[in-house]
């Protein structure tokens, strides 16, 4: 009895416990292996096939932006924070810009607000399409991945025509945008939005009927409303259980208070619900862009402001494709900020993701982790510890993906030599 007690406490120290509200029973296991010197991304503790615990280790993309921002001029920071994330870059610079603009006495022109809305929604479409494609890839449905990414090129072409770049648009400036909408683009954009909405409906049909997707996404990754709220999940992770958490509705910014916006929520609470949610949001985005492009007001696109920002503190939030982005800015009246704090939505959704993984099988891990739409590096490496067999091993994301496909569709998958040599 004493032996297992000390093992129990040893394990508790190693894993540093679970979140307080969870009612997990600790299962004693053998000696801890300190052999894993390489810092892993996630450490998953299994009991046979089921996951019982997940310990996150992020910091792979920690570059020290917040410290660097304190030494750079206000305007330079805007383009640095844009590169926090390649997929939701515009919203980062928008949120930072909004937080700083409020400290000055200048107002953003109306036309700029509409252009900001158009670019933000284009970014949302491209991000959701990217995600749907990746879900197809992880589920083993390569065709979906290829088709969706081809449709995504349409969005990137429009973005390139407006801003000059596909990924880091650099459209934002303080109190305005840097470039105007090109002339005679209205019809082209409206036509493409109609096409994309049609494609989204088609993909919706696929995920509702295609067996590959149904098997992998139905009833996977379930969370209750109470858990989601307590874990402060944001964006689609909150809306997929029915919580009306959308900054565009609750705290409108840019031109969202002037355009007809309808929030999308679902009640399924599983990954299939997330798929439906994001595709529906895509359709809403196409409507928003069509409306904004048709009702674009005339006027200036920018108000130039002095490089010194008055003292004060302000915070701002925006709805990125992944959820709520939050920026807090503090100025002491100089040319450089005193403190800039940015909180990405993936950090907010991480506790919910860890909770979603519990009780799932190993084969579901890539689907569940991708479902939160993570924006950190990639799922490079995961380490596993099976408490029943005492085996420990490390897999790359690709190995895990192939394991998942083999588990669900044993007759279809190719015999992967890589899986043979690495599967314990």
């Amino acid at each position, binding site marked *: 009895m004493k032996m297992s007690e000390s093992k129990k406490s040893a394990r508790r120290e190693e894993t540093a416990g679970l979140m307080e509200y969870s009612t997990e029973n600790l299962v004693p296991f053998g000696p801890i292996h300190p052999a894993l010197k390489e810092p892993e991304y996630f450490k998953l503790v299994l009991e046979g096939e089921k996951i019982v615990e997940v310990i996150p280790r992020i910091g*792979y*993309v920690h*570059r020290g932006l917040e*410290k*660097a921002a304190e030494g750079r001029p206000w305007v330079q920071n805007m383009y640095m924070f844009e590169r926090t994330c390649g997929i939701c870059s515009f919203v980062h610079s928008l949120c930072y810009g909004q937080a700083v603009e409020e400290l000055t006495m200048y107002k953003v022109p109306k036309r700029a607000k509409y252009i900001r809305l158009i670019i933000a929604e284009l970014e949302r479409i491209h991000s959701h399409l990217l995600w749907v494609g990746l879900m197809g890839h992880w589920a083993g449905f390569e065709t979906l991945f290829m088709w969706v990414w081809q449709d995504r090129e349409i969005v990137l072409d429009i973005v390139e025509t407006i801003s000059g770049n596909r990924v*880091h648009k650099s459209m934002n400036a303080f109190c305005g945008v840097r470039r105007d909408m090109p002339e005679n683009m209205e019809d082209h954009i409206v036509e493409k939005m109609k096409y994309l909405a049609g494609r989204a409906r088609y993909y919706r049909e696929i995920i509702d009927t295609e067996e590959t997707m149904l098997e992998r996404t139905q009833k996977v990754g379930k969370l209750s409303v109470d858990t989601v709220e307590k874990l402060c999940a944001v964006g689609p992770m909150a809306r997929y259980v029915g919580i009306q958490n959308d900054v565009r509705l609750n705290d409108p910014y840019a031109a969202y208070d002037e355009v007809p916006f309808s929030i999308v929520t679902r009640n399924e609470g599983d990954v299939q619900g997330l798929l439906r949610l994001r595709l529906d949001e895509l359709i809403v985005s196409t409507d928003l862009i069509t409306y904004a492009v048709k009702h674009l007001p005339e006027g200036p696109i920018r108000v130039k402001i002095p490089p010194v920002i008055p003292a004060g503190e302000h915070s701002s939030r925006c709805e990125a494709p992944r959820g709520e982005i939050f920026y807090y800015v503090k100025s002491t009246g100089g040319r450089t900020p005193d403190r800039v704090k940015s909180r990405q939505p993936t950090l907010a959704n991480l506790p919910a993701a860890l909770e979603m993984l519990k009780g799932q099988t190993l084969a579901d891990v890539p689907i569940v982790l991708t479902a939160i739409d993570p924006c950190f*590096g*990639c799922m490079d490496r995961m380490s596993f510890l099976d408490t029943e067999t005492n085996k420990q091993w490390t897999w790359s994301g*690709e*190995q895990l993906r192939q394991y998942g496909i083999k588990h669900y569709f044993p007759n279809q998958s190719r015999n992967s030599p890589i899986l043979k040599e690495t599967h314990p």
Partner: protein
Amino acid sequence: MLKQLETWARKRSPWVYHINASSCNGCDIELVASLTPTYDIERFGAVLVPSPRHADVLIVTGTVNAQTKDRLRKVYEQLPDPKHVIALGACAAAGGVFKGCYNVGQGVQDVIPVDMFVPGCPPRPEAIMYGVLKLLGEVK
């Protein structure tokens, strides 16, 4: 004779392993976009492989921070000879816009030898393909 055949095969069908060393994902999504039908790097024979032991070419994206430095070195050692390294993007070349930040290195060439730099923030898929193919032209 066998050596010539080997070189020809490697030139015609480079197996590429991609590692993300603390990147913002911009370069990564442009790399993945080069696989999609619009750009289709696979028609040149390039294939993304899941393990470094099967690769000829290593593509590195991102600034190299203290956490990923050792991992990058280890992955480079796992690649079988002869190997080539492509540093993708401004961050991999010299730190990009993050140069001087406290957890950012000086670029990939500080850690492992680099054969080809593809500039851009992020580089377009066409630029990536040009970089990969130009590198193969160097393979003797």
